[in-house]
């Protein structure tokens, strides 16, 4: 049942009443956020996410995957089993406009666009040109996990163009991020 509060009666001044009302509103907001139900994730959900790019995932799945370190680690272990293209070395700390990371059968380079320094290309060179990955998985050690559909390779090269401020761009520039493809 909703309790009615009279902030004017409790406060000595209008300013204090506004302060009390704002405090109450903040408390309500905090409780409302806490009430958002986290979806229950089982192995089947992780497996479908890792292997079927068309599969729809539960509401909130991506949020839980990004924020739950144990789940993210499970996803990493799963991808090590099912993704043919895996990281070998991590990107060195970004020192300039180019960052390169190496994987089993691929090399990924981030290169700043000459047309707009706020955008950069993700260039994935595939060693085996018959290999056509369609999904890129990006897992950060501390806070993020996502998958991105890839365009078809042209002469063994897959290329994306990203805005520097996008979440994916930020994560790919982070040396603590690993990439998988399948």
């Amino acid at each position: 049942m909703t309790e009615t509060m009279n902030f004017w009666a409790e406060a000595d001044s209008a300013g204090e009443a506004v302060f009390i009302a704002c405090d109450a509103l903040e408390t309500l907001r905090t409780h409302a956020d806490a009430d958002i139900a986290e979806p229950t994730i089982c192995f089947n959900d992780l497996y479908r996410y890792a292997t079927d790019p068309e599969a729809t995932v539960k509401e909130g799945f991506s949020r839980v995957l990004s924020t739950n370190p144990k789940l993210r680690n499970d996803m990493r272990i799963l991808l090590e089993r099912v993704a043919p293209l895996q990281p070998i070395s991590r990107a060195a700390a970004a020192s300039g406009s180019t960052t390169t990371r190496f994987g089993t059968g691929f090399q990924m380079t981030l290169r700043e666009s000459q047309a707009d320094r706020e955008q950069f290309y993700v260039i994935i060179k595939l060693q085996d040109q018959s290999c056509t990955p369609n999904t890129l998985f990006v897992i950060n050690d501390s806070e993020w996990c996502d998958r991105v559909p890839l365009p078809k390779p042209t002469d063994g090269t897959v290329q994306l163009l990203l805005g520097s401020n996008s979440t994916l761009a930020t994560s790919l520039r982070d040396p603590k991020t690993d990439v998988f493809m399948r």
Partner: protein
Amino acid sequence: MSKTAVFIATTEGPTRLQRLTAEAPDVRSVICLGGRAMVLPISPDYDTFVRRPTGVIEACYGHNAYRMDISDPIG
């Protein structure tokens, strides 16, 4: 501001060429919309038009990667 504008005739109407920039040689040529990070699906065909062995642009001008920004989508 330039006194010259270049338009490309398309079946959907004229598209203005906003910018043409030489990119690093390992970048595939792309056509983008309005200066944004939005690559149009016609880009692989543009790359084929630019890059050797099929591309005439590299043969004529010696560089193999360009980014073209246009005002309206093509294709």
